């Protein structure tokens, strides 16, 4: 039984930025892309478990704050060393000015 969980208002995250969202012991990173879409991934880098929300969003890429591992946050794909394991992504929808994610839990 998966449920949609409200994360924040759409204007809580700037364009081309990221926010950390913790829910039931899990941590997520929620992204607002330059073309005004929202995405969600696991919150921790697959390399050394660092919070990606402290990192930098450039276009469709999130860069880990620790070792500059890069992922395309739209599909979670790792963009080369030092990261080689993709990020898990989660469905996101926007309803009535709110961002919701489906963690599958």
């Amino acid at each position, binding site marked *: 039984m998966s449920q949609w969980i409200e994360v924040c208002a759409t204007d809580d995250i700037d364009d081309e930025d990221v926010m950390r969202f913790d829910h039931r012991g899990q941590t997520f990173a929620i992204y607002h892309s330059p073309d005004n879409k929202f995405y969600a991934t696991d919150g921790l880098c697959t390399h050394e478990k*660092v*919070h990606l929300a*402290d*990192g*930098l969003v450039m276009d469709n890429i999130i*860069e880990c*704050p620790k*070792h500059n591992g890069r992922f395309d946050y739209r599909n979670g794909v790792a963009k*080369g*060393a030092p990261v080689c394991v993709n990020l898990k992504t989660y469905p996101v929808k926007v309803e009535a000015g709110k961002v919701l994610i489906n963690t599958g839990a």
Partner: protein
Amino acid sequence: MTEASMVIVGGGKAGARAAVAFRENAWKGPVTLISDETLAPYDRPPLSKAAITDDAEPQPTYLLDEGMMASLEVNFLRGAAATAIYREAKTLALADGKRIPYDRLLIATGAEPRQLLLAGSERALLLRDIADAVRIRNEFSEGRNIAIIGGGFIGLELASSAAKRGCRVTVIEAQPRILMRGVPAEIATRIAARHAEAGVTILVGASIAHIGPDKIVLSDGREIAADIIIAGIGAAPRFKLAEQSGLAIENGIACNTYLQTSDPHVFAIGDCCSFPHPIFGNERLRLEAWRNASDQAIVAVENMLGGQRQYEAVPWFWSDQYELNLQIAGLPHLGASVVKRVPKDDALILCHVSAEGRLMGASGIGQGNSIARDVRLLEMLIGKKATPDAAQLADPSFPLKSLLKS
């Protein structure tokens, strides 16, 4: 005729990254990686930190394991010392008598800790490889007196790790303050205060008279109890192989901006080499930094395969002590003035600006990753030779990212 072959000497971060880069660049020919260590390439930054503080016996964090090397078809020669480069024959000689022909050779031999030259200094442990880290860790039991000679990054990271393990720690620094080389005084002061809070004694301007069996005696007569002594007094580039084969040396193996040595078939990367930096007026640098090792590998490999790319990544490094993270980007010493940016109460970033208003460096300290994003953006601005407005740099609510797009 034999197939053209790419040979890498040195199995650290730089060499390992280069091995991968050959395949990323679609090189189909042989790649040989020669390491004087017996383990596959592993990451060194944890050796002064997690390897010491974690409860579990430290395990190497492999950069390239056997499976990856097999799938990349990297021919890995372990425990192998390269003894000579026969440059006319384009052949590398190993200590066991093997001869390895190369089409292009990449030297990534790194740096090694400087030895202390004092009576009794054979007692001083050094930290370079994982065996050193295991040995040091096993000595760091609660209540022991640890004396660390040298208040640089290795010494201070080990002091932080020793304090976490409940040791009584003294850091002995000859200079008037810790981190004299490359870290602004204001940031070094914060780090020193954090060490003091953890109970670590830092003695600056201290010269050592002699080392006894259980203590260190300073020139002014003070005695420091020392069950264990560690020396962290800097690293020396390893270039004997290059020097003996007649390659130009200039504070390391001298490279041009393409990371090519004085022999066009031989390249060098990482801690062992020096190179002119195009965005800093071709100032010749030698960097002992994790990211530099990796970034140089990517550029050198492209050039070894016929590319013409200058290496112009902005220098960047970090240090973790306690919960503090220090980062330096660019070359702070080229700044004429400092603009302070305070992104959070307990975080501080100094922007080092030249007389002409160009951003030359950024140094920051904060808890966890609190300064990471701003320093990364400042690093990119340094790379663009930006001349940002001082008021905008100083305003923590001003988004630095907007300057990159202008």
